[in-house]
Structure formats: C-alpha cells, structure tokens
C-alpha cells in the first residue's frame, strides 16, 4: 500500500515512525521506572508522615489523652489521599482514629507488623510510636494509592502526549530538511528518466548531488545516457551510410536499366514491346524512325490506336492480320511469323505512306509460363516489294527474281485471306455442331421413346416381324445417339483449352481399367502393364486417349480365347518425346489400311462384328496432336495390333492443332 507513495513521503514516514517508536519505548521505560520510584517515594513519604504524626501523638498516648490524639489525627484532613489513620496504645487497644466519624470496627482490631505494604490500590501499615527509646503504641495509616496513581498516570500520559507532539513536530521538520538529501537526487533522477522517455531527448543529464550511493547511481545513469546517445549516433550514422549505399545502388540500377533501355533502343532492328493487351511498352529507335513517330507519342498507348489502317485503302488488312497473329501468340504462347504485310504508316502531316513489312511476334513468358510481353519485330521490306511491283529490273535474271518475289507476296496475301475465312468457318461449324447435337438428339430420343411406348402399348397386337421392326428402329436411333455423342466429344476436344500439368500415367491407366469394368467380360484379358513415366499433359484428355486405346484393345482381342493386353513405353526417339503403346492379341488389321485408322468415321470392321462409331481413334489422334505428339499403329490380320502415341517429354505442350489454319507458319 506504501508502494505507490512518492519516495519523499516514504522517507518522511520512516523517520517519523522511527521517532514515534523510539519515543514510545523510552516513555515506556520511564514510566515503569517512575512507577516503582513513585511507589517507593509514596511509601517513604507515608512513613515520614507517620513519624511526624507518631511523634506528635506520643504525649497523647503517654498521658492517655485520646481527645488530643483524635485532634492530632484530624490533621490528616490536609492529606486528601490518606483515607484512614489510627493510634493504638501500648496494649494494642485502639486509642484514637481518623476519620473520627468512622466506626472503630473499620480499623484493624490490633496492630500488625511494622511497615507499609501495598494491597488493593491502598498503601497501609503500622509503625511504632516512640518517645525516646520507649514505645508508647502504634500508628496505623491507610493511603489511597489508586486515586493518586490514576492522577499520576493521567499526568504521565498528558506529558507523554505533549512531548510526543513536540518530538513529532521536530522530527517532521528535521525529516523534511534531511529527506531532501536522499529524495532530492532520486526525484531528479526520476524526473530526468521521465523527461527522456517522454521527449526522447537523450541529451538531458541528471543533476548530481554528492558522492554517496545516489551520486554513484546518478553517475551510472548519466553514463548510460551517454552510451545511449553514443549508440544512437552510431545507429544514425549507420542509417545514413546505409541510405547512401542504397542510393548508390539505386543509382547503379537506374543507370544499368537506362543502359539496357538505351541498348534496346539502339538495336539496329525494328522492335516494339507490347503488353498482353497490346499496349506499347517500349520501342527501338530504328522502329520509331521507320514509323515516323516519337517514343513519347506511342509508349503506353494501344498499338492499333497508334497505327490504324490507312482509311483511304478500302481493303486494308494490316490491323486485322496483325491482331490475328498477336491473338495466336497470346493463345498458344508460341512465336508467330507473319507473311509480308501491307501496313501503311501515317506521316506527321497525317498523310499515309505505303509500307510493306515482314513481322514476327514472339512471346516473353514468366517463370510460371504466363505471358508477360509480346515482342513485335518487323522488317521494312517496302523498297523490296516496290521494286518487285515496278518490275523494272536491270537484267533478265533480276526481272525473273523480282517477278517471283512479287508473286510470293501476292500468294501469301491470298493464303492469309483464306486463313481468316477458314477460322470464321471453323467457328460457325462449332456453333452448328453444338446446336445440331441438341436438336438432333431430341427427335432421336422421341423416336426411341415412342418406339418403346409402342412396344409396350401394342406388344400383343404385333407379330414377330412387327416386333423386329420396332427393335431395328430403336437400335438405329440409339446408334445415331451414340454417333452424335461421340461427334460432340470430338468437337469439344478441338475447342476446349488444354490444362497441362504433370500427369501420372500409371494412375490414369489403372483408373481406366477399373472404370472400364473389363473383368466383368466373359473373357477378361490378361494385363501386362509396365511402369509409366510422368509426362506433362491435360489429364482429362489423356484419360480419354488411354480409355479409347484400352477399350479398343479389349474389344478386338475379345474373340481370342486368351486375350492379352500389354501396356508400356517404347524407347525414346531422338527428339525427346515419350512413346506409349497399347498392344493386343486380337483380330489385328491389314497394314495397307493403316492410314484410315485415325480418321473420323473410319472403321476397318463391320458394325455387326464389333460395335463402334469410328470416332474413338480420331479422338486419340486429335488429343495427341494437340499435345504436340504423334499417333501411329502396327498390326497384322489375326495377330493383333499395337497402337502408339508420343508426347513431348520435356518441352512445353503446344497446341499445333489449334493453329492449323495458319498457313504462313510451318510447325515442322
């Protein structure tokens, strides 16, 4: 509870308390001493009084004058604390007493031993009355010590209180003066500490009083502050140094960036760096010069906003071709080389100049294979093309060359136009196949549904033939439904995007075999499966590849009494692809029809022999192609078949199938 009291007050309290305790102890000792002294003195004084009284009453005793004796004893009235006195004669008979009014029975009947004793808050006793050496009788006195003691104690207490008040006052004044010696430096120290913690000013120093422990404490505190200040200074210096270093490093970085920039800008070629949404990030000086623009005018702007088609040329294809190429780069992350383009450039005065370009668009990918930039590189081939167009050569050879190149340009222009149309047709085809699959399925379903209803409804009215017709209708409808489903799947494969990850082929194969429920067949095949490597690809699509191949193998080996399906990898070919195969000991095929195997609706066996839509292997081919791989097959009639497909082992998975329409690019 004293913990939060200021030191100043604590010190004063300690001093005052000590004073009070010392004083109380001393007063206690004094009191005890005085108590006994008082009793002794009282006893002695009473004895003296007795002597005097006795001496005065000798004659009264000697001459039997009790009136006189009573008279003498009545002098005790002056002694208010003597409550009783009596004289006894030689024979021990009560001779006279005080107070006279008290009955004789109130006094001791006969004298006792000499001397005064304390009993019950009274001091009483006898003493002989002597005349010379002759005893004449006894004197009895009774003294009320209780009252006296009470008065004396009260006096004592009052005195003690008075003294205590004086001592406390002195102690208070003294302690007030003295505590400054101790609390002064401590308070100064505390104030300094508070000032530092509040203002964070480490230059403050605590004032020093003397050379005692507090002085040393102050010294240590100030020393600590010195060290903190020193440390702060060092820290600040270090921060300044670090900042300077950082600034220098930044400057270096800036310089090297500027250097790289200027390097890039000074490249002799014509380069533009684009964001994935075709905003211009940077351009080389040569490019600026060739396009008659300034860097400030184009950086940060949209490419096609900066370079629009020539409005005076009705059939300008420059922007549309470039955009198509850039879109391909964005979709496939593969460089796209364009055919020579006519893409006119606007002069500063607003007039367009005829220009021909040979552009290449290549992607810049991040570590996560995301598209960060597209580098658009062009070559100005205007002069070259004009020369060809002009046809004015110096020699015959020259003339032929120019002619050829001009034709090349024109034919590439045509190819490009055809490309565009093909892409549009492709999209239309997709939309068509989507709606067809829906709208075709509904009537098929109704055909089968109502055939079924008819079978139920008219079962007893139809003869065997009628029944068979209905079954045929129903079977045909179902077959067509399957065809539509497979066609849909096939088109979906072409349209949907590849999601490539590292694929666990062991897992895929095991999964396909489990889901295929081949063990339920009357002749389940014997499996021989080698461990398969992990290769990147789209797992959903690759699962379809494995399903089609394994389903085929099981189906075509179904007629063998000991069907066997072997799955494994063939040794890598030279260009880093991984080759997988599925082999069976089924009916096999004639190698002269091998080219037909992977085409849509191509079947080597009749429907009554083996069920199927003729789309499974086409799907396999399409999926593997989209992964950048190949498909092929080996077989011999009656001796089984082996189907192979390859996937790029390390390279990124590309989508050549999707860019098949790009005539100018050559994938192989």
């Amino acid at each position, binding site marked *: 509870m004293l913990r939060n009291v200021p030191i100043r007050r604590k010190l004063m309290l300690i001093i005052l308390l000590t004073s009070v305790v010392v004083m109380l102890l001393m007063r206690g000792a004094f009191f005890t001493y005085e108590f006994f002294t008082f009793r002794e003195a009282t006893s002695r004084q009473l004895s003296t009084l007795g002597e005097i009284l006795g001496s005065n009453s000798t004659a009264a005793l000697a001459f039997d004058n009790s009136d006189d004796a009573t008279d003498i004893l009545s002098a005790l009235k002056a002694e208010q604390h003597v409550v009783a006195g009596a004289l006894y004669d030689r024979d021990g008979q009560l001779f006279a007493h005080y107070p006279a009014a008290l009955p004789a029975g109130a006094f001791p009947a006969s004298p006792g031993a000499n001397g005064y004793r304390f009993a019950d808050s009274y001091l009483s006793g006898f003493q002989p009355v002597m005349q010379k050496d002759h005893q004449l009788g006894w004197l009895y006195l009774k003294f009320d010590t209780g009252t006296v003691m009470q008065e004396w104690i009260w006096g004592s207490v009052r005195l003690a209180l008075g003294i205590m008040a004086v001592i406390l006052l002195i102690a208070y004044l003294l302690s007030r003066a003295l505590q400054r010696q101790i609390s002064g430096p401590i308070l100064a120290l505390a104030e300094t500490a508070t000032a530092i913690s509040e203002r964070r000013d480490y230059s403050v120093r605590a004032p020093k009083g003397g050379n005692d422990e507090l002085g040393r404490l102050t010294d240590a505190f100030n020393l600590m502050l010195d060290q903190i200040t020193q440390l702060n200074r060092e820290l600040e210096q270090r921060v300044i140094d670090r900042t300077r270093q950082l600034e220098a490093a930044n400057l270096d970085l800036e310089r090297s960036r500027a250097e790289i920039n200027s390097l890039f800008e000074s490249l002799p070629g014509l380069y533009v760096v684009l964001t994935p949404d075709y905003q211009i990030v940077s351009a080389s000086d040569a490019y600026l010069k060739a396009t008659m623009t300034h860097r400030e005018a184009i950086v940060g702007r949209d490419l096609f906003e900066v370079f629009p088609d020539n409005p005076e040329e009705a059939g300008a294809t420059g922007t549309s071709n470039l955009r198509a190429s850039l879109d391909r780069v964005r979709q496939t992350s593969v460089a796209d080389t364009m055919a020579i383009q006519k893409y006119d450039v606007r002069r500063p005065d607003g007039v367009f100049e005829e220009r021909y370009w040979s552009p290449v668009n290549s992607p810049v990918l991040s570590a996560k294979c995301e598209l960060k930039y597209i580098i658009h590189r062009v070559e100005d081939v205007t002069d070259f093309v004009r020369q060809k167009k002009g046809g004015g050569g110096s020699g015959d050879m020259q003339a032929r060359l120019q002619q050829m190149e001009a034709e090349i340009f024109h034919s590439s222009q045509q190819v490009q136009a055809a490309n565009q149309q093909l892409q549009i047709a492709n999209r239309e085809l997709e939309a068509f196949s989507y709606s067809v699959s*829906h709208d075709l399925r509904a009537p098929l379903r109704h055909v089968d*549904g109502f055939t*079924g209803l008819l079978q139920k409804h008219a079962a007893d009215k139809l003869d065997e033939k009628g029944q068979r017709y209905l079954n045929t209708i129903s079977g045909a409808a179902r077959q067509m439904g399957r065809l539509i489903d497979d066609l849909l799947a096939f088109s979906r494969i072409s349209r949907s995007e590849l999601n490539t990850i590292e694929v666990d082929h062991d897992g895929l194969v095991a999964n396909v075999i489990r889901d295929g429920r081949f063990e339920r067949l009357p002749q389940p095949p014997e499996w021989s499966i080698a461990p398969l490597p992990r290769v990147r690809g789209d797992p959903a699509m690759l699962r379809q590849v494995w399903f089609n191949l394994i389903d085929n193998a099981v189906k075509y080996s179904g007629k063998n009494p000991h069907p066997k399906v072997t799955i494994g990898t063939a040794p890598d070919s030279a260009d880093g692809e991984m080759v997988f195969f599925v082999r069976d000991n089924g009916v096999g095929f004639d190698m002269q029809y091998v080219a037909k195997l992977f085409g849509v609706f191509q079947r080597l066996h009749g429907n009554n022999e083996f069920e199927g839509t003729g789309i499974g292997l086409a799907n396999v081919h399409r999926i593997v192609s989209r992964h950048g791989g190949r498909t092929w097959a080996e077989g011999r009639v009656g001796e089984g078949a082996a189907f192979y497909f390859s996937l790029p082992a390390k390279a990124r998975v590309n989508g050549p199938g999707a860019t098949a329409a790009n005539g100018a690019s050559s994938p192989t």
Partner: protein
Amino acid sequence: MASSLRPILLAEDNPNDVELIMTALKEARLINDIATASDGEQALDYLFRRGIHAGRTGPQPAVIMLDLKMPKVDGREVLRQIRADPELHSIPVVVLTSSREESDLMQTYKLGVNAYVVKPVDFEEFITAVGKLGFFWALLNEPPPEKIAQP
C-alpha cells in the same frame, strides 16, 4: 404427409418430351400432381401465381423439372429468378436437358441447380432416370417447409 402431395412442376417446351416424362413419372407410380409449363414464362407465372396462374391456391411444387432450351424465357433465367426469390429459392430444381456441354453444366450449377441430368436417348434408360428423379425429389427428399399459410 401433406408435403408428399405437393405437385411437381415440369417446364418443357417439347410436347413429345412432356409425354415421355409424364409416362416415366407414371411408371414410377408417383401420385403427385404434375403441372406443366410449355415455356419459361409460363413456369414463372405458375410459381409467382400470376398471368394464367393468378389465383392459384395450391402449394408450391416439391420439385421443379426444368428444360434449359425453352422459348421466351430459357431455363437459366427461370432458375435465376427462383433462386433470387425469398419464397421460392429453396425449392429443389432439377435440370433435364439434351445438352452435355460443359459451359451449360458450369452455368447452371453456378446458378444453384440441385441436379443436372442429360436426357438419355435410350427409352428404357430415360424411363428409369426420370422415374428415379421423381421418386427421389418428390418422395424421398424432405422439401423445405411451406412458408405461406394456405387460404
């Protein structure tokens, strides 16, 4: 079992499909009433008790069987309005469609469909599938409690 008497709403524009589905449900011996709507607008009118269904007093359906491709208002829009309505949003909706397209699947699941079923071409399969659906959603499934007191 008042809840088992709640009707099934069938929204299907193709009368052939309607007949096949009705047959399938009958085969499954469902005793629920079956209300039909031949387009999305009619389905919404039924659910919101307006237009030709103004003053309809029966309870809301135990399940809605919804075709995606419908004239006027297509199945997606019907589904969106059902899920947006505080009274209707918890009614189970089963999409019955010819489309196996991934985009259709994704879209309808995002809108909160309870089941997505491609109508099989095979009649037997169709009968089984629709019968099972009806049985599950109209009988087995405990629908959310009817909120509006019936007059």
